[in-house]
């Protein structure tokens, strides 16, 4: 058996919970971001692009690239690498842009 990241740092997490991803329960640990919870389940894509409909997920992991956008609790275009996976968080694959009222 190979080592896991949790074993490396001797993690003893507080009790976990689940978030909802497209109707499917996904385990999450307290303090993990949504993107981290999805990666832990082997899920790497949760958005399709506006022009070519291609799958995308987290790329930069630090809030800079905006590739990890998803609809979170009904709010479109949220950066899942920044938002915590809280108990009951609902994440929906975002199709296309879903540009909210933001200025860039």
């Amino acid at each position, binding site marked *: 058996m*190979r080592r896991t*990241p949790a074993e*490396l740092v001797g993690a003893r997490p507080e009790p976990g919970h689940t978030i909802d991803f497209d109707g499917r329960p996904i385990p999450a640990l307290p*303090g993990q971001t949504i993107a981290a919870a999805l990666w832990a389940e082997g899920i*790497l894509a949760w958005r399709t692009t506006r022009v070519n409909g291609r799958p995308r997920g987290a790329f*930069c992991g630090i809030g800079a690239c905006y590739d990890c956008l998803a609809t979170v609790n009904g709010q479109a275009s949220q950066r899942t690498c920044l938002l915590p996976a809280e108990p009951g968080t609902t994440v929906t694959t975002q199709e296309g842009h879903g540009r909210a009222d933001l200025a860039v």
Partner: protein
Amino acid sequence: MPTSPSERPAPYDLAVIGAGPAGLAAAVTAAELGLRCVLLDAGPRPGGQYYRHPAPGLGAAHPERLHHGWSAFTGLTGRLAASTVTHLTEHHVWTAEQGDTWRLHATVGAGSTGSAVVEAKAVLLATGAYERQLPFPGWTLPGVVTAGGAQAMLKAGLVLPGRRIVVAGSGPLLLAAASSLVSAGAGVPAVVEAGNYLGYARGLGTLAANPAKLVEGAGHGARLLRGKVRLRRSSAVVEAHGTDRVTGVTVARLDAEWRPVPGTERRIDCDALAVGHGLLPQIELATELGAETVLTADRTVALKVDDGLRTSLPGLWAAGETCGVGGADLAIAEGELAARVIAGAPVPTALRRRRDRRRAFAGLMAAAHRPGPGWTDWLRPDTDVCRCEEVSVAAVREAVEELGATDSRTVKLLTRAGMGWCQGRMCGPAVACLSGSSELRPDSRPLSCPVPLAQLADGS
């Protein structure tokens, strides 16, 4: 305390933007020298990129196993807790207004829903860096992540993007990333480095003056050897394969100009790729106000500072990666140095020497990993340059060759490359290169992050 315009308390003596190694060192030093200091950071915990660490809920008993020099960080956070510094987490400063006092406008909260204005007599910009990307066919596939992103997700979330992860690009971060991935249980079949590391040999004196860096490098090297990781120099990933996620990469050798050498391609199976070509200083808060910049040895744009780390704008200082990428030790030294200058305290000779040595080493690293002009040969017409707006190489080349664009700004207007959510952070270097402009200018980015329109209306 965050302020609202109606209840304006006295401005702080110093606002430090960014709680990475540079900003942390600056804030605690300034407070210990008697300044009223506020420290703002977009993230929920101090540490910045280098000292990114798991949330308390993950119960990590040994976070230091993912870091070199963890005690330097616990030293800083201990001083922070004991200090008078007002630490505002999840405050992303989107613009800085200059006047008699500085007014910093920030979005508040992980979802940027709140807002705050903070006033201060002086500002220190310690906003760090983000990674430079050079596109290649397949780089938008799920499973292709940035090298620093893989580090960040591992350090904070204790997760990996795959089980067999190729690490590629250029720069010292690749070795650090590969070393952590291996320690955390991932297989790393290869570290693919475009540079040849010969540049380091030309700077042996500088290397000898930075023994800590050699020890750190040796630590990575030993872990990589134990993990049976192969370092391929003068090579690049020229394509990532897969339909809905990456299943393998093609690696080719590069000539001295970074042109792929035909016939040298070989395929490596993997389920993830962590890629990056060094770091770009994050300086838009200053450049939008007209701060002067310098070009670093690896062709990135950094803030121009004097030996007291003053930028060209009165009342604005910079420390760490904003003055040119150079690592956590340098960032700490510069944070401390800037704070002393701002507080009017003397700068100890040993501190200045430490800083100058680290800066020299940074220059050496930058030169050794400067991208060669031939990298564009691995692009194909249908490769996306701009990930956000899905603008292809063919579209950018058309703007340049047929429509006569000669710089990034014109290419952007003609193609939308760089106009999406990330504001050109991912495609900027590639677009600048393809547009053939010899002059590198700071990217134009009026707001540091997308801001809810209601906050924009309030703030002005």
